């Protein structure tokens, strides 16, 4: 008969070992995804991929230059709308907001982060696309901006809250106005953190596909004006991978590699910078 003490000890060992197994198991899909994206994506990359438009179905060759450019344009558009609104919202929550309104906004920010991105796409379709009567880069940018605003707002708020109260008091005691205090003292000392937050949010929206399906749509041509539909890497990955053509699958993997490199470098750089700002915490 095994003694009770020994049984407890063995059980302890077993459960602790299981946590190690769980950790190892979680890293397997990460390794597999990165491996396949690299191995299948690399052969698809050549000069044509970065410089040419997609070939007609059935024709060999062609590239996804328009989709790379399109993704960059969409992300910049979204950023141009979401960064000011997001940062201002964060400033409101951290510096001015009191009582029920601030609580509501903070809460809805978190809720908005949890709204499925496809629903953002549908709503922008019903409002912007139907009003303009066309799919457009602008609509795509707005959809991405709606996803980005709450992310930027909440990070900005958190960062501003880390700025010591004494800095604000010192500035106000010198006779500076609230605006001046926020601009020259609070924002300045929080700038690094805010930029990091914006980078993380950018990395997040760059890979979004669902909100673009009914807003920016897709395009076989170079990006035109803001009111034209526009190509993007995520949408091309989706459409190409669901066709039966080998050649297009190859391009989809190439696009995935580019997208993953773009997203991961941005997000890793932001995280490393954040760690440095937090004093190596």
């Amino acid at each position, binding site marked *: 008969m095994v003694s009770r003490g020994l049984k407890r000890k063995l059980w302890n060992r077993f459960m602790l070992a299981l946590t*190690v*197994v769980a950790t190892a198991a979680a890293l397997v899909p990460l390794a597999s995804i990165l491996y*396949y994206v690299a191995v299948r994506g690399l052969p698809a990359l050549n000069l044509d991929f970065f410089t040419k438009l997609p070939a007609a179905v059935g024709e060999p060759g062609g590239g996804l230059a328009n989709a790379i450019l399109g993704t960059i344009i969409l992300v910049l558009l979204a950023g141009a709308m979401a960064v000011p609104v997001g940062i201002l919202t964060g400033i409101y929550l951290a510096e001015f907001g009191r009582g029920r309104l601030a609580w509501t906004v903070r809460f809805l920010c978190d809720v908005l982060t949890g709204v499925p991105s496809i*629903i953002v796409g*549908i709503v922008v379709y019903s409002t912007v696309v139907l009003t303009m009567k066309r799919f457009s880069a602008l609509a795509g940018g707005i959809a991405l901006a709606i996803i980005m605003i709450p992310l930027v707002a909440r990070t900005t708020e958190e960062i501003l809250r880390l700025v010591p109260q004494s800095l604000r008091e010192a500035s106000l005691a010198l006779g500076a106005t609230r*605006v001046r205090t926020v601009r020259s003292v609070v924002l300045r000392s929080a700038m690094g953190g805010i930029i990091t937050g914006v980078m993380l949010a950018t990395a997040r929206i760059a890979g979004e596909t669902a909100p673009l399906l009914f807003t920016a749509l897709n395009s076989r041509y170079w990006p035109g004006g803001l009111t034209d539909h526009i190509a993007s890497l995520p949408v091309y990955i989706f459409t190409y991978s669901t066709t039966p053509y080998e050649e297009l699958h190859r391009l989809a993997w190439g696009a995935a590699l580019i997208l993953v490199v773009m997203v991961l470098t941005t997000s890793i750089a932001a995280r490393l910078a954040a760690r440095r700002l937090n004093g190596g915490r």
Partner: protein
Amino acid sequence: MVGKAGRGKIKDTLFAGISGLAALSIIFIIIVMLYELVVGAGPALARFGWDFLTGTRWDPVREQFGAWPLIYGTLVSSFVALALAVPLSLGIAIYLAELAPPWLREPVAFLVELLAAIPSVVYGLWGLFVLVPWLRTTVQPFLGNTLGFLPLFQGPPLGMGMLAAGLVLAIMILPIITSITREVLLAVPSSQREAMLALGATRWETIRMAVLPYGRSGIVGAVILGLGRALGETMAVTMVIGNRPQVSLSLFHPGQTIASVIANEFTEGFNEMHLSALLASALLLFVITLLVNILARLMVWRMNKIPQGVSRE
């Protein structure tokens, strides 16, 4: 001088006003969403009423719209994901917060969070060309042979289907459940552990009886937050679930979720009623995820004020 001070005051008020306006935009966005979905869903809800929720046929060609197969697919794929992801996430969080050597903690936590940075469509691509073939040739024949007596694992091994969707979702929600649980565990005071260890408990007993119960509400919040993600996840699911609106007990069979049916059919809506039915399902998804997220936030907030965003490491 008075004029200057006065101007300063005006500027202050103006600035506070502008930032308040930006903040109001959040409320505005949520209201517009709700309004558009309700108005769009109107015709379908008026025509089908409660049958919209319970009807089992989703047939755009015959204009029959019962959303039950979609609701069923959404719930089942999400619960498969939770069943796989929750034990794993708890294990990882416990390992990272309680057991791992200090030099290993940050790098591993970093790698787990990288999973959250990979775009959904890339999960879909990987799922379609790597996971699905593996399920078809290896996993499903094995499950069919050993556990085939269960209705869950019957039918031909197609690869694509509920099981594939659940698996991909599990990988996608793992990082969020893990990182919040880990923070909750780190916030448990060490006196809890010391007291338990001093009583002669083993490490595992300490974790099970003193640490996990202390963080229960935060952990449950993390799981619900993961559920919210899974319910609304679109691209990856659309690419591997097989897209057939049917109710079937077997996880080997193809299915359809609310999000995937929208992604598939919205741009090629056959008619007004079809579009309205899609908007009605979107409304349903919106309300469900809203409730789930509110519940989760309240639980995590109650546990402790966990900083969001960058400061969260």
